[in-house]
């Protein structure tokens, strides 16, 4: 049985800080995706939403919320939550539904409105809550990314300039992307001049949070053929594996890794694309373009190695050589990445797939990766969530 489905529509509401409701971003993205696919909303028989935990009950039931906003028409519905991987989980749910023959056309959708100001933990003494505990002892979010970044410097000899290079490259990529929030060609000096947040990471090394919405219309290969879109990009693999005990990398919000006294230490990030390559039956050498989760600049380098685009420790060299720029051997984050978007959690993994869809169709204009045939995404959320999606044409 084929494991492929077609992507016939992609749509995004531009990222930013718009101050509107997440439902509006999602509906606009959905309408763009429906128009792109050239189908009617009533043709959708499965709505797969990625939840947001920030917008009350409508966010918890995002699938139903979007279905109602677009107009109840009896479609089946699903709402997935998997932190940063929520969008991929929603796509995975739609794929399984289609491959099982229970739906022909699905809408995959996620949107978020970020809160104003700092996202503070709930009040009170809550020593049972790992998130409360780590904040109480002074371990903030950037800590984790900074520890990974510093580890690269200590082990591979990466420098802060290397990290800044990631930012400069992604800023150049996203400069002309109409969906991106930050469109400025930052320089090495801009990055070096920004305030240190968590050594070695500066403000411009870490990504912001944004409002945004993204949507995909996916369908069976038969349906795509029927409506004259047999050549649409296809989803060739989705990996949503969980970690394997003993998980060796310290993850937000934990204060400790698993103990590896009775089971070998395992790398979760590396396991994600590994499963995707196996499922797609291809290897890293086949990849034309990658969209990875640059929550920090340094993390993009980790992902390059986890995706096996280079050997461990070689990512900074690839970057310095220009291999990951558009026009290089293996462009990474042609969209501009999180550096230019800022994360809109439930929409972000879907936005990665939107970008690859446009790349594989050759519709990316100034940021087009010439001849892109295979694209891969990677991201990692909290609590053992992560994903890697492979598209091909």
């Amino acid at each position, binding site marked *: 049985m084929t494991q492929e489905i077609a992507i016939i529509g992609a749509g995004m509401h531009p990222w930013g800080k718009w101050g509107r409701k997440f439902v509006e971003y999602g509906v606009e993205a959905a309408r763009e995706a429906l128009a792109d696919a050239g189908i009617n909303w009533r043709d959708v028989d499965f709505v797969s939403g990625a939840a947001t935990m920030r917008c009350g009950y409508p966010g918890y039931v995002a699938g139903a919320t979007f279905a109602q906003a677009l107009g109840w028409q009896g479609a089946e519905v699903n709402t997935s939550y998997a932190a940063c991987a929520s969008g991929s989980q929603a796509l995975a749910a739609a794929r399984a539904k289609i491959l099982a023959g229970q739906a022909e056309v699905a809408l995959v959708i996620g949107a978020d409105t970020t809160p104003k100001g700092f996202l503070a933990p709930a009040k009170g*003494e809550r020593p049972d809550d790992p998130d409360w505990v780590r*904040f*109480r*002892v002074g371990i903030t979010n950037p800590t984790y990314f900074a520890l990974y970044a510093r580890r690269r410097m*200590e082990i591979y000899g990466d420098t802060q300039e290397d990290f800044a290079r990631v930012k400069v490259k992604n800023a150049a990529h996203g400069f002309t992307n109409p969906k991106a929030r930050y469109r400025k060609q930052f320089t090495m000096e801009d990055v070096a001049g920004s305030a240190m947040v968590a050594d070695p990471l500066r403000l411009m090394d870490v990504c912001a949070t944004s409002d945004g919405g993204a949507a995909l219309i996916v369908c069976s290969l038969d349906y795509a053929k029927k409506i004259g879109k047999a050549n649409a990009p296809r989803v060739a693999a989705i990996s949503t594996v969980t970690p394997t005990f003993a998980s060796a990398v*310290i993850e937000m919000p934990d204060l400790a890794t698993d103990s590896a006294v009775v*089971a070998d230490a395992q790398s979760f990030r590396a396991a994600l694309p590994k499963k995707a390559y196996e499922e797609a039956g291809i290897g890293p050498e086949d990849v034309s373009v990658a969209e990875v989760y640059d929550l920090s600049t340094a993390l993009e380098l980790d992902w390059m190695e986890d995706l096996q685009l280079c050997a461990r420790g070689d990512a900074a060299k690839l970057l310095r050589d220009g291999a990951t720029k558009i026009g290089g051997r293996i462009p990474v984050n042609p969209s501009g990445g999180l550096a230019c978007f800022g994360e809109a959690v439930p929409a972000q993994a879907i936005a990665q797939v939107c970008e690859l869809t446009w790349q594989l169709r050759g519709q990316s204009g100034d940021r087009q990766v010439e001849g892109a045939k295979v694209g891969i995404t990677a991201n990692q959320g909290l609590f053992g969530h992560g994903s890697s999606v492979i598209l091909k044409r």
Partner: protein
Amino acid sequence: MSDELKPVLEGFFTTGDKPALLGSRCTKCGTYYFPKLEGFCRNPDCDCSQFESVELSRTGTLWSFTNACYKPPEPYVAAEPFEPYAIAAVELDKEKMVILGQVVAGVGVDQLKAGLPMELVVESIPDLVEPAGKLVWKWKPMTEGGAA
């Protein structure tokens, strides 16, 4: 000196001359957990739910490090004016796990380097209720003043 102070988290660590973090050890497979684990062993090949409370190794090796340049949000209580502090991820040899914690006051990232031997100590941090602060575990380089 600081022996009168209360711990910032009850049951997370011992105080005194040779402070140690308090973890759990599965009585069946021997896996360690920090903080203490209740319920079920997280080793997928172990179905045990009995744990013993254990003191974890007091010393380890610096895996990586960073610092907090901005005042963290609540429930962290920061001194005013805020003073940046370093943070260490330390690998314990016996338990084969990495544990986070602040680095003792006065030691900055420029004095740290992966591989340094580190030791667990307790120091006070500010608290909303206790004027003298509360005790927390911190990591301290074992070579005087760090390796720099």
